[in-house]
């Protein structure tokens, strides 16, 4: 049990990101330039390459994982978790450092990789199995088990493009779960699928762990990590921030994500610094927890050392399925005439119709001509808390709301018996604020 399964030494991965200006030059333009001023054109092409900037997605990471350990990896998006898994799965090579793995590895970075829409469930089981490294004999041997686990017997000969997303995920996870490797590497794949199936998958991974195999598990679902793992590693900015007993690490991680992100950045080329981005509710209290239907105010504190004329600010609210809604000056045209010195730009999203889930806010700032000043990136986090029953929700499967599409535009059902019922998140009920907050936290 004490032998090491994965040993990582000073691992680093560097990416080059192009800081190209947003160009709208067409092919004709480029060719014209090339013909008229060949030397200048060539230089500008070369310089465009020089503008590339190094970005270390992972740096100086050393981890030792013993056989039979179940390790949860947590951290914000872009903290380097996925990069680490990609390197360990040999999808990409490290820029520096080394690692050693003892045992057969199966990695599941995405559910249903290599599934082909046109092929049937049966065909996809074989194809996916082969892609994940199983031989045909192995797949045939476990075929019945896979089908039983996925609960799709009747649809085995239907093309997967006709599957519901739940069926699709079930089948995909079933194949991967039957790889029976010595080391299992799983990225955030359980965010999809209904909660019953999520439970089943976690159970399967638990069995895995109990049989003495090693599991490396990335998830945003802290409860899942707590249930499954003994040890957790928290990644921050491409480095190991904290490594230890799962409850401790999860606790301190939770404290950080529920407080606001201390965002700041600058672009010296334009002399613009974003000093702080903060969130307020309609009572002007700085917070990161909101109720459905409350106003959400984003404050951006900037310092412009140069005059920046008519810049555009773009804000977007992101949920589990991607972007929910945006406020985009490129479209609405409500841009400031000039930024000079210190100041604040605020945006008030009114009566946000979001389900109780976690969200992030991304921002980018562009010039008058839409060239990039501040790259599109995460600047703040918030969660929506509250009891949906307070908003008249009374479905039997209310617990599934955490995986539902987050935005709820007010709607009204009309039923055959003539009754109608309105559903809306835009009017918060009278809050006994402290108590309901406490409830939501539990």
């Amino acid at each position: 049990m004490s032998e090491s399964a994965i040993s990582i030494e000073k691992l680093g991965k560097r990416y080059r990101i192009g800081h190209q200006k947003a160009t709208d030059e067409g092919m004709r333009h480029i060719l014209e330039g090339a013909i008229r001023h060949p030397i200048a054109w060539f230089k500008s092409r070369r310089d465009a390459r020089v503008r590339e900037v190094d970005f270390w997605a992972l740096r100086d990471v050393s981890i030792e994982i013993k056989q039979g350990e179940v390790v949860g990896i947590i951290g914000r998006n872009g903290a380097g978790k996925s990069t680490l898994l990609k390197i360990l799965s040999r999808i990409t090579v490290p820029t520096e450092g080394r690692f050693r793995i003892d045992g057969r590895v199966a990695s599941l970075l995405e559910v249903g990789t290599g599934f082909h829409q046109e092929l049937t469930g049966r065909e996809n089981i074989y194809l996916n199995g082969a892609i994940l490294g199983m031989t045909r004999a192995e797949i045939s041997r476990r075929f019945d088990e896979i089908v039983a686990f996925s609960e799709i017997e009747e649809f085995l000969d239907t093309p997967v493009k006709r599957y519901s997303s739940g069926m699709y995920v079930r089948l995909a996870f079933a194949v991967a779960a039957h790889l029976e490797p010595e080391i299992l590497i799983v990225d955030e794949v359980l965010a999809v699928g209904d909660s019953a199936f999520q439970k089943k998958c976690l159970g399967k991974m638990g069995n895995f762990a109990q049989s003495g195999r090693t599991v490396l598990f990335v998830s945003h679902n802290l409860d899942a990590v707590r249930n499954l793992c003994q040890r957790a590693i928290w990644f921050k900015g491409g480095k190991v921030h904290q490594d230890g007993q799962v409850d401790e690490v999860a606790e301190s991680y939770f404290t950080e994500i529920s407080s606001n992100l201390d965002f700041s950045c600058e672009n010296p080329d334009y002399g613009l610094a974003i000093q702080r981005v903060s969130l307020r509710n309609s009572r002007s209290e700085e917070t990161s927890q909101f109720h459905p239907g409350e106003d959400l105010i984003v404050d951006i504190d900037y310092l412009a050392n140069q005059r920046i004329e008519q810049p555009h600010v773009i804000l977007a609210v992101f949920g589990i399925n991607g972007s929910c809604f945006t406020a985009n000056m490129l479209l609405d045209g409500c841009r400031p005439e000039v930024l000079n010195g210190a100041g604040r730009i605020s945006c008030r999203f009114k009566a946000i119709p979001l389900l109780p889930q976690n969200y992030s806010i991304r921002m980018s700032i562009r010039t008058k001509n839409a060239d990039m000043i501040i790259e599109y990136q995460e600047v703040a986090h918030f969660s929506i808390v509250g009891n949906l029953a307070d908003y008249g929700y009374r479905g039997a499967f209310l617990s599934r709301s955490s995986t539902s599409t987050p935005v709820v535009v007010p709607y009204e059902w009309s039923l055959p018996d003539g009754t109608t019922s309105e559903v809306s998140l835009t009017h918060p009920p009278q809050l006994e604020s402290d108590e309901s907050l406490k409830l939501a936290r539990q």
Partner: protein
Amino acid sequence: MTQLTVEAGRTERQYWRDLWRYRELFYFLAWRDLLVRYKQTFVGVSWSLIRPLLTMVVLTVVFGKLGKMPSGGSPYPLLVFCGMLPWQFFSTALSESGNSLVSNSSLISKVYFPRLIIAASSVITSFVDFLISAGFLVVLMLWYRYVPPTAVFLLPLFVLLAVAASLGFGFWIAALMVEYRDFRFIVPFIVQFGLYLSPVGFQSSVVPGRFQLLYSLNPMVGIIDGFRWCLLGTRSKIFPLALAVCVVEVAAVLVSGIIYFRKTERTFADVI
């Protein structure tokens, strides 16, 4: 127990062993492409017959009837078909394997396996078409009551040469395509021009003698001539020098293709 060590900047030793371990994936990927190819088409697999058949008719009319090119004593359609057999294989293999990495980018960024398999398995897919066309050639020969010479037993060697050429160029283009999508436009170009620059619709002997060597720099010249020589007999000439040039070229392209592919493969997932 298997042990794996990866160190930055070092090539992996277990690559060729992995290639062997994943050998069944060749088969599965080719099988997938074949299964998917004719889904939701009306005439299905017949497409792999209709295409060469129509091309043969057009080339026969253009070069044989209108252009009045010499046929060297064989029926013109047969002459054309023997040339088209390797050409169509080469050109489809080239476009398929050229696109293979990009169209499988979701696989490349999410799972590990030796990437050579993707590019190679699309050559296998085209090879199945080749076999179907070859079957049709047999029918065509029966129709013309044409008995191939004993040299027909050397045909597998030329098939091998065609496969090697497809793999070599395929690896190059697939790897280049990952970074330079320009090749998406270049490949159809090569395929379109190649049809006329290679002796598909005519015999290579119509090229004047002093250009013969220059002409044989096109590796398909040696291969197509070889096919005709095996299938139609001595009436269709084979130039030993052209053949030698072709063999050397194909070998060089194949070896350099594998080397280049291996070198760039490590960063595919980052660039694609």
